[in-house]
């Protein structure tokens, strides 16, 4: 990570194939995720919710992935930290807070799942459980079913941490996708840690991307704090997938700026200096500086948008908090699907 560039030197968004509107959209998406994330942390610390899973530091990569995918045709098998990315597939801030508060109106699971375990068939998001990397073979199978149905437009993307990429399911899923040359983009959000375990303890090689060689498809490393670079990498993989070129493994390198979850104490395993250093590459800081340097937004506009986002997120959180809990009588609903096909 020490070799990654510091704030302000992002890939040019136009060179990456993005319009100014796209870049503004990415900034807003990142700002939104950050604002939601901070609010959730606060609400947890206030005792208003038992658990949260921060995405701070990962919004940039997610914004890049988000714009490279087409939610009308593509499918996403996400990682739990994807608070920015899932919005591209239709999750509104209020829906995200309904999930966070485990309310009846939670579209993910009606309050059954621990927060941040995304999923919604209508939104083209595969249901996520807690066991890591299980979604990787799901993504391959989903792509296979789409192909069987004659759908040649859809690409399936799946995201996961570098920790999950140690699991057999990651390898087996990649293998199946490669054998059938399926239109899948595998994206590792490498945030340097699996809870307390640093990359060098988890992996014999510095890059998760190296694992693509085992399956004969391209493995690409990209600066995950540079949303435009991530966009370009995913876009290329997306194009490859759609044109019959098979899967790609993209590793976006970044840093998890907060503890693993609201239950973790990261002081047990990493220094404040290390975290402070990583904060200089905070993707939101970087894109904010970029917006100003490229005259897409000035300081006042940024302040205004930030304030507006705070208001929007407050409203979403308040509405969700006031929403009804699931009725305990529903406990045994949907154990089995009732009607025959």
């Amino acid at each position: 990570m020490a070799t990654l560039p510091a704030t302000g030197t992002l890939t040019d968004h136009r060179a990456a194939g993005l319009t100014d509107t796209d870049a503004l959209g990415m900034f807003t998406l990142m700002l939104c995720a950050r604002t939601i994330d901070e609010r959730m942390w606060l609400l947890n610390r206030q005792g208003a919710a038992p658990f949260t899973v921060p995405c701070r530091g990962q919004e940039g990569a997610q914004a890049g992935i988000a714009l490279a995918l087409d939610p009308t045709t593509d499918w996403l098998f996400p990682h739990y930290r994807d608070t920015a990315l899932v919005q591209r597939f239709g999750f509104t801030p209020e829906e995200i807070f309904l999930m966070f508060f485990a309310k009846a109106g939670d579209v993910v699971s009606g309050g059954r799942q621990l927060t941040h375990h995304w999923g919604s068939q209508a939104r083209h998001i595969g249901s996520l459980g807690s066991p890591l990397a299980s979604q990787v073979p799901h993504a391959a199978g989903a792509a296979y079913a789409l192909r069987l149905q004659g759908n040649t437009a859809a690409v399936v993307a799946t995201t996961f941490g570098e920790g999950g990429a140690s699991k057999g399911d990651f390898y087996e899923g990649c293998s199946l996708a490669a054998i059938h040359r399926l239109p899948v983009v595998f994206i590792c959000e490498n945030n340097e840690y699996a809870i307390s375990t640093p990359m060098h303890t988890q992996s014999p090689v510095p890059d998760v991307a190296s694992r693509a060689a085992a399956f004969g498809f391209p493995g690409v490393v990209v600066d995950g704090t540079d949303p435009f670079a991530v966009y370009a990498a995913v876009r290329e993989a997306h194009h490859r997938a759609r044109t019959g070129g098979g899967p790609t493994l993209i590793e976006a390198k970044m840093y998890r700026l907060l503890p693993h979850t609201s239950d973790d104490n990261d002081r047990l395993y990493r220094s404040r200096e290390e975290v402070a250093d990583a904060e200089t590459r905070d993707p939101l800081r970087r894109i904010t500086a970029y917006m100003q340097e490229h005259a897409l937004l000035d300081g006042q506009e940024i302040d205004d948008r930030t304030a507006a986002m705070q208001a929007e997120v407050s409203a979403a959180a308040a509405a969700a908090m006031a929403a009804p809990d699931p009725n305990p009588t529903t406990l045994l609903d949907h154990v089995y699907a009732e009607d025959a096909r």
Partner: protein
Amino acid sequence: MTATEPHTHGLFSPPAGNDDTARGATMIEAINAALTEEMARDRRVLLLGEDVGKRGGVFGATKGLYAQFGAARVLDTPIAESGFTGFGIGAAMLGAVVVIEIQFVDFIMSALDQIFSEMAKMHYRSNGDVRLPIVVRAPIGGGVHGGLYHSQSPENLFIMPGLKVVMPATPADAKGLLKSAIRDPNPVIFLEHKRLYRSVREALPTGDSTVPFGIARVARAGTTLSVITYGAMVHEATRAAEIVAPEGIDAEILDLRTLQPYDRAAILRSVTKTHRALVLHEASKTGGFGGELAALIADEAFMELDAPVRRLAAPDAPAMPFNSRLESAYMIDAATIAAALRDLAAF
């Protein structure tokens, strides 16, 4: 095993029975027929597993399907049970109807995370949003010189909310239950006793007939005592019943057909009639599915009982050994069952 007892069957070709096809179909033929019909009926049906393609599966369950339906719908997988089970789940999430063949149930173990954590919980965790029409077919059971890892009966592992579990005892049931399983919108674990694949023949009903889940079959009506069982043990129990019948012991044999759901009403009905229950399975006793069945009877038919609820099951060894003498010592046979019937009738 000595050189004087020639082996007439092998792992992929378990004991055969009457070869007279006029006497009906074997279970493996019935399964093949069910798969063929359902694949023809519903284009969404996708088959996957090791060697299911050209080879037609090691037991021949998928024989001819590769030729008839093509490589895209009859998929030979790499040896990656977790991965291809997850692959099947992903395909089902996107609308495929997936039939997964696990070559031997003994090799399902590395897929248990995908089965328990994903398959069993997906519909519930998505609050009904996702449905997984998946059938996981796997040969089960021993007595085929398969040794420790080609003879196990781990059906009780799958008794878990969110999964359905089927274990047919006859060719006709295998066909009808498999058709139901493929049409079910839920994940179904479909366990096929490999000793029954070729040893029993039966005429199959004509037309598109299915067998519903949760309805036990009275394999033999009787009045003295009830044997609650399933799978290959239905046949051993029937043989045992004939052994003790001349002694005035008239056993009723209930073939559960499906273990989840299981037919509580039929069990209670039978025990209410006979007042004595023997729960029987090929799996080892401690921690086996028999505990569930005996517990149901001890709770809900308690006032009807004239004798303890007995369980007869394999000894608590980790698995069935390969050597023929050890295998025989492990397996429950008709004589052992007959002894248990006498004992229970005499209580």
